[in-house]
């Protein structure tokens, strides 16, 4: 009943099935690749290229200056000051986010009346527009009518209204606080998700072994949270480091350049000082610094 004869693996004149499937797959990803090339890859290369020019923004006329932009930047105090500010802001706000995030997550993991509603209230700031968050906080910080100053004076902590945003180091402290308020829910969500997946047996076993509440936290909870916290810290480091909206809207980098971070310096160079080339160079340097964290995250996420 079977035809005898040499076995053929492909009918002539027709691409093999795997090839046709591969082509279909390539066709489906083609729009993505096209858009990526047009709006991400091209601008990215373009940014690196622009950093080698001196370009006057209004006329967009430029001339090749090679590494001059970089030489100028690395010799300028402003670049190093912005980098320092960037590090202070990132470390400060991240530390508060993580500590506060873990504590609130532990709290919300326990039995609480109206727990779902409490969670919503805590998580919502994260989804709020930064513009709204900043407007609200500027109203709270208002030196004359701001409720924060009144509260502090009423409680006797200060006896003069505090200038929250106009002086240093107040501006940086305010910034770090608002950043922590806006972004700590990210840590809460991550930790809650992880806490929900820790099996109760682990706690029961620890209790049987004689561990108290603190012992259970240190020996059971913290080790289980380790991995998720590493990911959270990496992601938030990347995102906090590149934060523009919050800082630009809350202090504008001021007073003078007291809270100016690298993303703000990029914006200022390009659109206030009209130096597109210099701005691109700052952006490229900033990305190089971030690359370390990005690569760390990429290698973890690929597992």
């Amino acid at each position, binding site marked *: 009943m079977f035809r005898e004869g040499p*076995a*053929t693996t492909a009918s002539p004149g027709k691409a093999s099935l795997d090839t046709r499937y591969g082509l279909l797959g390539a066709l489906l990803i083609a729009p993505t690749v096209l858009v990526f090339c047009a709006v991400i890859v091209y601008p990215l290369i373009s940014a690196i290229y622009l950093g080698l020019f001196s370009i006057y923004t209004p006329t967009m006329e430029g001339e090749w200056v090679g590494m001059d932009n970089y030489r100028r930047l690395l010799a300028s105090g402003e670049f190093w000051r912005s980098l320092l500010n960037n590090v202070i802001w990132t470390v400060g706000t991240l530390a508060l986010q993580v500590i506060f995030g873990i504590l609130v997550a532990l709290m919300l993991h326990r039995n609480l009346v109206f727990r779902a509603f409490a969670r919503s209230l805590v998580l919502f700031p994260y989804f709020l527009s930064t513009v709204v968050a900043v407007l609200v906080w500027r109203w709270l910080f208002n030196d004359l009518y701001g409720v924060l100053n009144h509260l502090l004076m009423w409680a006797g902590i200060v006896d003069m209204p505090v200038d929250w945003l106009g002086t240093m180091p107040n501006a940086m402290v305010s910034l770090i606080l608002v950043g922590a308020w806006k972004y700590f829910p990210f840590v809460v969500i991550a930790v809650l998700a992880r806490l929900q997946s820790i099996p109760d047996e682990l706690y029961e076993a620890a209790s049987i072994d004689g561990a108290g509440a603190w012992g259970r936290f240190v020996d059971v909870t913290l080790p289980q949270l380790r991995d998720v916290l590493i990911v959270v810290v990496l992601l938030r480091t990347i995102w906090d480091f590149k934060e523009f909206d919050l800082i630009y809207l809350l202090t504008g980098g001021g007073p003078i350049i007291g809270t100016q971070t690298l993303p703000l310096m990029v914006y200022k160079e390009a659109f206030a000082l009209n130096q597109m080339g210099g701005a691109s160079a700052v952006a490229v340097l900033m990305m190089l610094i971030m690359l370390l964290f990005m690569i760390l995250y990429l290698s973890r996420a690929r597992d």
Partner: protein
Amino acid sequence: MAGIRFDQVSKRFGGVTAVNALSMEIQAGEFVSILGPSGCGKTTLLRMLAGLERPSAGAISIGGAVVNELAPAERNVAMVFQTYALYPHMTVAGNIEYPLKKRRVPKTERAGRVREAARVLELEALLGRKPRELSGGQQQRVALGRALVRDPAAFLLDEPLSNLDAKLRTHMRAELIRLHRRIGRTMVYVTHDQLEAMTMSQRIAVLNEGALQQFASPQDIYARPRNDFVAGFIGTPSMNFLDGRLEGTGADRVFRSGDWSLPIGALRLADEHPDPDRRVRLGVRPEHVRLDAQGEPARVILVEPTGHETILVFDYSGNEIVARMDGEVSLEPDDSVRLSFRVAKLHLFAADDGRRLNLDDS
């Protein structure tokens, strides 16, 4: 209805060879099981037959035509998946109807065929339900229904019973045999469960590490295993193996292991004049071990009564020997007994490549 033929089929995933130069021919209408331990390449073989994987080399034919480059849709085979793979968003009726829709069967005809398949599988009351509202056994029947409704050239079943509980599995085994008898279609049944393979199939293909070990009827595979892998894989408890040497020829032949020897002159070998001192493995099925006052001394290690029979483990000249005996045997651990083997039923395998050395009649 169509026969299936594998011609030197290989499949490699990267550097791993899942199926290695496998050839076999399944007759039209035959119920064939592909049996082997997990990772032996049996599911890959089935997926290649369905068109879900492409062979790296060789040819697969269905009904005489090479199908290597045909998409699954063009092969007219039906498949039942281990996970059932029911479409969760469709009702039972929708699931069963789907293959008809894709084959452009007219709507009026579809309804009738769905109803007929549902009737055969006793799913009529469930047609409006979603898969998640069904029990495991019901889901399994829907998966069968989706294959049955189509009248395909061959049915491919990938461990369809492995997610059912023991009782339901026995029931479905009988159902499948009845089904095959009634529709008489070619069925290729992948399983790691030798009981399923032995009870259901007309022929069994035993696979190990991507290579076909033996392709024969269940009786043949059990009584005349082609090598020591098949011998050891088929049968519970497994066959006992004793490593040793052959001495002498013909009626004077002796199997020697250490200082213990067994005359096996009654055993006929395919090659009557092998090298002297040939290294071999002697295979003894547990049911061919018996208590015998004239036998060799042994000590009872373990007694496992199952009711109608008792499984015993002996220390026999330093080897562990498993025996299957009558349920009424009354032995205790550490009892001393004497054992012998039914020499005519012994199996001899070459120690180097494991091939069978017995001369078989058929």
